[in-house]
Every structure is written in structure tokens, then in C-alpha cells.
């Protein structure tokens, strides 16, 4: 090599090497440390919930409705079912509208005023405090109907899901490379078909992540349910009546003066977080099976 003469003296190179090794280790340590810091809160919360809640978990918790004050036992079966119903209503509403909105902004409305308005609205909606969402739905649905209902609760949660899903769908669609879109158009596939079957499908892992984020977020929401779903101490599956929900029940029990209820609240919190983790993992698994992973 011609550049040999230009190399620094041997001693200097050795110290450079020492420095390089030190810097390398420092950088690795910083990265590992940050990873631990990110995971620590989740692990701490989970461990604490296990510690506080696991002892109160029994079959009754999953099969019985709450007992009146003073009686021991009882469970949150109606709240678990109620949360399931509320989230089903919310997802049925939020996922299609959210994805459709994202598709519009990314694929059909580029540089159009309406698309910019949709994007702006979604961002603002994302910042609306959840209690305000509860009051809004109270005014729009509960007051005209003259009663609290599962439907109102589901709609409140569904609207809260929309902005997250819309914005992630938009971003994931825009990440699909132009040459993949051109491949579809070049085959004589109509644009709408190409958007649904090629672009959206290519972006689907990211879109599903967005839906799951929105789902997990609203699954733990209490405030928007206070004036909408209201809560219920009894079995109810009707969309037209007040319905119990895990976060609501936890809220009520945690604020109560009774030790028994405090224990149930801890157990409820543990069940809530486990249900969220399990449903997210399940959706990812089922959705992931349909998609072949490329190596490159």
C-alpha cells in the first residue's frame, strides 16, 4: 500500500486502539443501560401487580359478579365480559374508520385540502383529554337516549382509537416503496385494487401494530367510560344498558375504604394487563401467519 508512510507511529496507533476499545465498551454499556431503563417500568409494574393481585385471584374472581359491601368473595366476571364487549364495539368502529382514513390521506388525498384537514383533525383528536371525550359522548349519545349504555362507552373508546390508527396507517403506507406500487400498476391492476391488495398488504405488519397500540391504550381507559358505560354491578350484555368494565371497577374499588375491595382492585389490574398482553400477542400471531417473511 502506498499509504503506509502516512500512517501514524506505532505508539500513537496503540493508544488510539485503546481509546477505540474504551469508547466501544462505553457505547455498548449506554445502549444496554437504556434498554434496561426502558424495560424496568413495565417489569416493575408487572411484578408489583403479581405481588399484590395474584393472591386474590381465584375461580370466583372470573365467574362471579361483585358482592355487596360487607360480604366477602365475589368477582369481576361481569367487568371482564363488559370490557370485552366495549372493546369489540370500539374496534368495530375505530379500526375500519381509522384504516380507511389513513388510506385516504396516504393514497388518494395527497396534496388535497381535505387530506390535510383529516390529518390535522386526527392529531388534534389524539390530544383531546379522554375525560373530554367522555363528556362529549355523554352530550351526544347519553343525553338524547336519557340513559347510560354500553354503546355510548364503545363509541367513546372507538373514537379515541381512530387518530392513532389513521396516522400509523398513513405512515406505514407511505413507507411502501414506489417500485412495489409500480409493479402492481404495470400488471394492469386498477389503482384501488393495488392499494388494497398490494400497498396495504405490504404495510400490514405496521398497520396491525398501530391498531394494537390503539387497542391497548383504550383498553385501560377509565375516564371516557365514567359518563358513558357508567359501570354495572350485575350481569349485562345489552348494548343499550350500562355495562361494567375492568378499569371502572378497579377505579371504584380502589377508591373504596374496604380492604377486601382493595385486594380485588389489585387482582382486577393484574387481569386487565394480562388480557391486554395476551390479546395483542394473539392478534400478532394470527396476523403474522398470513404474511411470509422475506429475507432481504
Amino acid at each position, binding site marked *: 500500500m502506498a499509504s503506509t508512510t502516512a500512517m501514524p507511529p506505532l505508539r500513537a496507533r496503540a493508544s488510539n486502539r485503546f481509546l477505540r476499545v474504551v469508547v466501544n465498551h462505553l457505547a455498548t454499556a449506554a445502549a444496554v443501560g437504556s434498554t434496561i431503563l426502558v424495560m424496568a417500568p413495565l417489569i416493575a409494574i408487572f411484578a408489583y401487580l403479581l405481588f399484590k393481585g395474584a393472591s386474590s385471584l381465584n375461580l370466583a374472581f372470573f365467574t362471579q359478579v361483585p358482592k355487596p359491601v360487607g360480604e366477602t368473595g365475589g368477582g369481576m366476571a361481569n367487568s371482564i365480559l363488559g370490557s370485552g364487549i366495549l372493546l369489540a364495539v370500539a374496534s368495530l368502529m375505530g379500526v375500519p374508520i381509522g384504516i380507511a382514513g389513513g388510506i385516504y390521506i396516504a393514497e388518494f388525498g395527497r396534496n388535497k385540502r381535505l387530506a390535510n384537514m383529516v390529518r390535522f383533525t386526527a392529531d388534534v383528536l389524539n390530544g383531546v383529554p379522554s375525560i373530554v371525550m367522555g363528556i362529549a359522548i355523554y352530550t351526544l349519545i347519553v343525553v338524547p337516549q336519557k340513559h347510560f349504555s354500553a354503546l355510548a362507552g364503545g363509541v367513546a373508546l372507538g373514537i379515541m382509537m381512530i387518530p392513532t390508527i389513521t396516522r400509523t396507517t398513513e405512515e406505514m403506507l407511505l413507507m411502501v416503496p414506489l417500485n*412495489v406500487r*409500480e409493479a*402492481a400498476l*404495470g*400488471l*394492469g391492476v386498477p389503482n384501488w385494487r393495488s392499494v388494497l391488495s*398490494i400497498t396495504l398488504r*405490504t404495510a400490514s405488519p405496521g398497520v396491525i401494530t398501530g391498531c394494537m397500540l390503539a387497542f391497548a391504550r383504550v383498553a385501560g381507559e377509565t375516564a371516557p367510560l365514567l359518563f358513558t358505560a357508567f359501570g354495572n354491578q350485575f350481569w349485562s350484555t345489552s348494548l343499550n344498558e350500562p355495562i361494567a368494565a375492568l378499569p371502572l371497577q378497579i377505579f371504584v374499588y380502589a377508591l373504596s375504604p374496604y380492604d377486601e375491595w382493595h385486594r380485588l382492585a389489585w387482582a382486577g389490574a393484574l387481569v386487565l394487563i394480562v388480557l391486554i398482553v395476551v390479546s395483542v400477542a394473539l392478534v400478532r400471531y394470527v396476523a403474522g401467519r398470513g404474511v*411470509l417473511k*422475506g429475507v432481504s
Partner: protein
Amino acid sequence: MGVEIEVSDLNAWYGTNHTLQNISLRIPANHATALIGPSGCGKSTFVRCLNRMHETNPIGRVTGTVRVGPTDIYAQASPVEIRRRIGMVFQRPNPFPTMSIYDNVASGLRLNGFRNRKVLDEVVERSLEQAALWDEVKNDLKKKSGASLSGGQQQRLCIARALAVDPEVMLMDEPASALDPVSTAKIEDLIFQLKSQYTIVIVTHNMQQAARVAENTGFFLNGKLVEFDATHKIFTNPTDKRTEDYITGRFG
């Protein structure tokens, strides 16, 4: 079978940039035609005008007429119909990343609503054989993703995908420029075999490649077609001084 393409007075713009100026030429059926010229001369834009891909760009605009067989493609057909009849292979291999090899080849038919499994199986096998890829992938058709193949295999997969819809014309925009010499040779062999059944238009930066595969060659410069003639004439005895300068490497 391939059809003739007749282009008259074609002009194309990107915004205010007049990228193609008054192009007229006749591309014979069942032959390979090469388009050469320095980068930015308009040859890619030209092939994109032949299947109306140019207008998918929001600032793209075209005037003039292009006849493919009996059809005036800008006046008598929708872009979607036209692109079904005119297959296109792009510079970078672009298989659909979420689809298996089989699904990639079948995609053109499936996305247009074709569902008959038996026929799809036959078309997939025939297309992969035509693209000289069948033997390499026949055991992983539905197991492997199109994106898991090597670059050269991916490009042949894209050729198979284009062939599966049974086009009359194949447009190839520098199909081998991202590939190694071995894969390039395979693509060239393919072009040689395919041109008995399809009209092939190939854009290339590689003049040896043009000389090897094409009967006719067009030389583009600054958005104009400088010269269009039989390949051996272009390379041995060009009429225009600019063609000669380009071929002998004096510029570009």
C-alpha cells in the same frame, strides 16, 4: 403473438420539463428493439409512455399518438387495459415482498379477479419456465417469499410475473443493470428466446447488450430520437455524428 408499435409525434413533460420531443418511430413485431443513450436522455420516459405509466406521476403529461397493434392507446383504451397487454420489467427487481413465489407470478391474474386454480397452476409453471426460473424454485413455490430469492432470480421472477398475464409487448427498463454478469447473461438469453413470441423494447446503458440482443436500436439524446436503425448499422456505420460520438465513447 407480438404486435407492432407505432409512435408518432410523442411529447412528454415532467412539470415544465420537456423530456421527450417529437418522437416518431415504428417498433416491429416479434423483434427486440434496444434504446440507448446517456442518463436523463428520455429513454426511460419513452418506454413509460408506451404503457401509460408516465401519467401515474402526478406531474407527468403526454401528447401525440401511440398505436399498439390496432389500438391507439391514448384515445381508445384505459390505462389499466393497456398495461395488461403490455408487460413491464423495471430496473430494480420488485417482487411483492409479502407474497410467495407462486403468488407473485399469479398476482396479475388474481388481482384482476381470475380464480380458477388449475389454470393458475398451469400459468405459473409455464411462466416460470419461460423465465428460466422453474427448476430453481419449483420446490419452494408456496414456501418461500419472492423477496428471499437472489437479485437475478428476483428479476426473472418479475419477468415471469409479467409473462403470466400473456402480454403482447414486453417493456424492459434496464432489466439487468442491477445484476451481476452471470444473471445478466441469463436475462439476455431470455430476451433472445422471448422475442419470437413478444415484441420487446429494452432500455440499456450497456451497448454490448444492445448489440447482442436487439435487431434494431434507437439512440436518444436530450429528449430527442437522434437515430433509429438496424443495430449493426447503428454500431458500425451510424448516419449521425452524435451517434458515432456516443458509440465510440467520446461523450456520455
